[in-house]
Every structure is written in C-alpha cells, then in structure tokens.
C-alpha cells in the first residue's frame, strides 16, 4: 500500500463516516459540523486528485461560507422541539430501501472496471491556471451567467429575508 | 442645554484624522514618566485628613477611653460597629468611669471609612487611623475586637480628658 492509497482510504472512510453522522445525529448542529468535516475530507480527496484549486475553493466556499450560513440559520431558528425524533419508521425503511437499491446497482455497475477513453493527451494539472484558463476561454458565457445567477440569488435572499414577507 | 452636532467635513467623516490624532496621542504617552507606585515596597503618602480604619485609643494613663455609650454604633451607616456594654470593675486603676465596653467589634468588611463614629464620639475614643490595607483570609479575622482595636489605636495623648478627676 503506497502512501497515496493510505491517504485515499483514510479520506474516503472518514468522509463516509462523517456522512453517516450527518444523517444520524440527533442535533442539527452536530449534523452541520459533521458536514463540515465531510467537506474537509472531500477537499483532501480533491487534493489526491490533484485538483488543488478546487480543494481550496471547496473549503473556502463550502466550509467557510455555506456551512457557516447553515449554522447561522440553525442557531437563529429555535429547533429544540424538532430534535425529539430523528426518523419515522416508515421514512427510515424507505430511505434504507432507496439507498440500498442504489448501492446494489452501484455494486453491479462497478463490478466491471469503468473504462475511460483518455481524450486528453497530457496530465491535467489542478492548479489555478489549468482550471481558470478554460473558464475564461471556453466557458465565458456560463461563467457570466453564473455570476448573474449569484446576483439574482442575492437579491432573492434579500427579498426573502425581509420581515414583512407576505 | 442643546448641543449642536458639529457639521463634519468629508474628510472628517472618514474619521481618519481623529483616529490618527488618537494614535499619536497614545504614542506620545509611551515614553512619558510613569505614575505607577510599586505598592508593597513603596507606600502611598497619606495626607492630613486621610480616613483609614477606625480604632480605639487609650488615654495617657493607659485607660480605655471608650465608655460604651454606643453612639458610634447608632450612627454607623453600614452598621459595622457592635458594642457589648459592661461594667468597669470598681477596684481597677481606671475605674474612674463605671462603664466600659465588654466587647467592641468593628466589622472591617462592612466599614465604609466614613468617619462618622469619630465625629460622634463624645469621649474622643475612636479615631480613623491611616491603616488602609485591612486584609485577612477569613471573615472572622476582619471582625476587629476590642483588644485588636486598642492595640491598633495605642495611646492617644490628648489635652481633653473628661474623666480625669472622677
């Protein structure tokens, strides 16, 4: 086992464990914290995949901004009453069925190695330039549209957050 | 009084000049002469009317001046003084007065050093001395009893001496 493998298994298992805790923990704050851990481990996997820029972005955006927002909202809402029960029986069964079915299918699919048609010639770097160049060249329009989307989302949030929303 | 809010110029409204002036002011103070007194080694100078801890005094003949009239107990705002009156034995050297405190307690935790006891005492038996560091490890230690108070007060050589010829 190379160090790469060790790291992979460590990050993967830690991440999946965090995922289980997200779902299973009674307290939403705990869930959120586990989700942060999940994101951090995921960033680790990104690093293993040499996507350094995205790893940084993953932590910056997801862990740094999104989850803080989550925590903020959880704390704002007084959720004590809803901590009582995590699952309904029916829902638990349903969830397990669906998740189980998915995993089963996954098992079937991944029994055969996924062959990839290597379309690129050289290794893809995960540095800033490697990701950003196509972003500003091939994906300029989506990039701008995303920016617009963020703007719209911002306005929407401001509107939604008004106290006298009807 | 109506204080007119001063009209600030654009430059002042950035608050930068004030902040810089403040920084300069604090900086100027760094090399200044320090006023700190190295306390336990260096005692403060106490001036004329300093009001420290109240104590009992004896006259030049070593007689307890207090006759337990309880006026100080009456006047004491925080009720720090507690006197148990008693007889002065007739055959003692200081039996010129019939009455003396059997016990005289000043609770230094309660005392506010107002000096009213000194003011009110008809016998000039109680004085506020210069002691200001009244400390102790237990509450009981700070309940100064008659002996302690007399010891602190010592002999007060005073012209006025009411009971001398009795």
């Amino acid at each position: 086992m190379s160090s790469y493998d060790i790291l992979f298994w460590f990050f993967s298992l830690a991440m999946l464990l965090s995922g289980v805790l997200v779902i299973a923990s009674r307290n939403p704050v705990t869930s959120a914290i586990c989700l942060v851990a999940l994101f951090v481990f995921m960033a680790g996997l990104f690093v293993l995949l040499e996507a350094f820029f995205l790893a940084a972005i993953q932590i910056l955006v997801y862990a740094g901004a999104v989850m803080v927002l989550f925590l903020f909202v959880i704390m704002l809402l007084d959720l004590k009453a809803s901590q009582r029960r995590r699952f309904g029986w029916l829902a638990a069964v349903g969830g397990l069925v669906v998740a189980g079915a998915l995993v089963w299918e996954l098992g079937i699919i991944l029994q055969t190695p996924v062959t990839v048609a290597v379309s690129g010639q050289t290794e893809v770097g995960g540095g800033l330039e490697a990701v950003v160049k196509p972003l500003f060249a091939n994906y300029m329009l989506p990039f701008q549209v995303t920016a617009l989307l963020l703007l719209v989302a911002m306005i929407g949030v401001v509107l939604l957050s008004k106290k006298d929303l009807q | 009084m109506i204080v007119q809010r001063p009209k600030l110029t654009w430059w002042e409204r950035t608050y930068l000049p004030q902040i810089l002036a403040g920084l300069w002011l604090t900086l100027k103070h760094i090399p200044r002469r320090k006023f700190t007194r190295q306390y336990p080694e260096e005692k403060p100078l106490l001036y004329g009317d300093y009001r420290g801890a109240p104590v009992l005094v004896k006259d030049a003949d070593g007689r307890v001046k207090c006759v337990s009239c309880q006026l100080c107990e009456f006047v004491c705002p925080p009720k720090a003084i507690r006197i148990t009156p008693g007889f002065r034995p007739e055959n003692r050297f200081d039996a010129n007065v019939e009455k003396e405190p059997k016990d005289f307690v000043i609770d230094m935790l309660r005392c506010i050093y107002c000096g009213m006891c000194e003011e009110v005492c008809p016998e000039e038996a109680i004085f506020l001395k210069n002691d200001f560091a009244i400390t102790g490890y237990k509450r009981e230690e700070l309940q100064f009893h008659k002996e302690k108070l007399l010891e602190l007060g010592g002999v007060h050589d005073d012209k006025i001496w009411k009971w001398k010829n009795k």
Partner: protein
Amino acid sequence: MIEFIVISFIKIAAVIGVMLTIVAYTVMLERWVCAWMQDRIGPNRVGPFGFLQPLADGVKLILKEDVLPHHVHKVLYTIGPTLVLMPALINIGVIPWGSNLPVFGRYIKGVIADLDIGILFIFAFAALSVYGIVLAGWASNSKYPFLGGIRSSAQMISYEVCLGLSVVPVFMQVGALNLSKVVEYQAAHSWLVLCQPVSFFIFLVSAFAETNRTPFDLPEAEQELVGGYNTEYSSMKFGMFFMGEYAAMFVMSALMVTLFFGGWSLPFAPFNAPATSLPVGLAHIGIFLAKVVALLFFYVWVRWTIPRFRYDQLMALGWKVFIPLTIVNIVFVGAVLALVVK
C-alpha cells in the same frame, strides 16, 4: 523523501515554537504597551522585568480547575477552542518566513509549504476559524456566548469578503497567488504598500475585524457580553481561545508583511534577493520577524487607542464602505494595469 519529511518536521517545529513564543510575548506586549500608554509600568514582578510573566500565566491557566458546566454540549464545547487555534497554526505553514537557508550545500526554503494557491489556502483555513467561535458560543448553551458567537460569525463572514477582495489587486499586479513569489516580486520591485495603499488599508482594517480585535472586538465585548463566546470557558480551554486570538493576529501580521511590506526583504542589497549564504538567510528571517513584531505592536497600539464600534457601524463599514471600495479598487487597478502598464 525522508529528507523532505525530516526538514519539514524541523521547520514545523521551529516555526510553531517561534510563533507560540511570540504569541505568548504578544500578550506581554499588550499589557506593557497598554500600561505605558496609560503612564503605568505594566507587569514587572515575575522574573527580571516581568519577562517570565507569560510563563506564569501559562502555568496558572493549565493548573486552574477546568470547569465543564453541565448544560453544555460536551463534545462541541471541547473542540471549540481547538478549532480556534488550529487555522492559525495551519496557515503559518504557507507564509514564507525567509528566502532560503543554505545549509550543508542545500537550499532550504524559508517556507514549510510553498503552495501555488497560497493565499487561497490561507483564506480557506482562515474561514474555518469562525467555527471555533461559533461552536463555542453555541455549545456553551448560555446567552452571552451565544450572542458572541452569532456576532462573530456575521462579522467574520462579512469581513472575509473585504479581506479577500482587498488583496485581489496585489495578485493582479504580481501575477501569482504564490506568497513566495509575492515577496520576491516586492524584493525586486518595491513594497506593495506603496503601490496598493488602498488594498493595504482595507486589508489592515479587515484584519482587525477578522481577528476580533478592538475596535472590532464585538464578539467578546466584555461590557455587553461579559466576554462573549468564551464566557463559560475556564482553564486551558480559555487559554486556547486566548492563544488563538493572538496566533490569528500573528498570522494576519505575517500575511500583511508578506503581502505589503516585502516579507523578508529590505530594499537594498543583499536583502533584496533570495539569500545565498546562511547569515543572510538568517537575517531574512530576523527581518521578517521584526516586521511582524512591528505590526503586532500596531495591533496593540490601536487596541488601546480606539474604542469599540457599534455593531451596526461595523456592518455598515464592511458592507457599505469597504466592499464597494475594494471593487472600485480592483476595477481601478485593472484599468491601470491594462491601460498604463501594457
């Protein structure tokens, strides 16, 4: 590989050791400067001139009883202080302390991890530091810590934006996110504080807000929140918050030195180029630390000069003044770079 690991470990140990020492003495500095400004002497009892005071404080904090209130969320309450301290310790790893140290014929880089996305890395982990405070506030299950936590999270998120946007012009000018490259650029050209005063100013002020320092110390505002998020903490847990704050200050100062004050460089030879001899390499580290300490002094100086802002003023400053200013600054710098430089 082994060599890399060994050198890295040595570097980590050295950096963290120096950093924590400086952090401890920053607390001293704080108390001294405060005292001097108020015409007092300051701590001078423990050891010669009071130099052992941090040690005494540390011993006291460790030996104090660690109170675990029964109403807290035990796990989160416990990891809160750690999370505060951690980002600072991680971030110091990408800041170049010196150019390089020629030892035994090797050139050892003056930075633990010379990342290409250095600044992003720093922002990413700096962003995590808010968790410590928020969790501490929430897990304490008590109203003052809670208010402190909420305030802190809002404040830190807000000012992260300013912080991030304010340094964009720097990288536009330098052309790389790598902090070593930023320093080398400055060593070769001029300190960026001269080229990017607006960026520096906003970064400086936002750094105060990010580290919860006066005048932006609303999350801990003693008078209103009796200490804010750390109200319920005692002993070393409290000590970690304390260290976390000062470590964050240290990192921010180091970052400012790196970004705006030329890092390890001085604008004359032989300090304006990466070291080729050991003395110069060591001198570079000294220069860097001297600059950092100067900035730490500035932090302290400001704290004892300027009173605390009101919360709405804080937010208004961030959102209504700094963010527009940074954007204008970016556009302006971009325009200048596009029109003038090219």
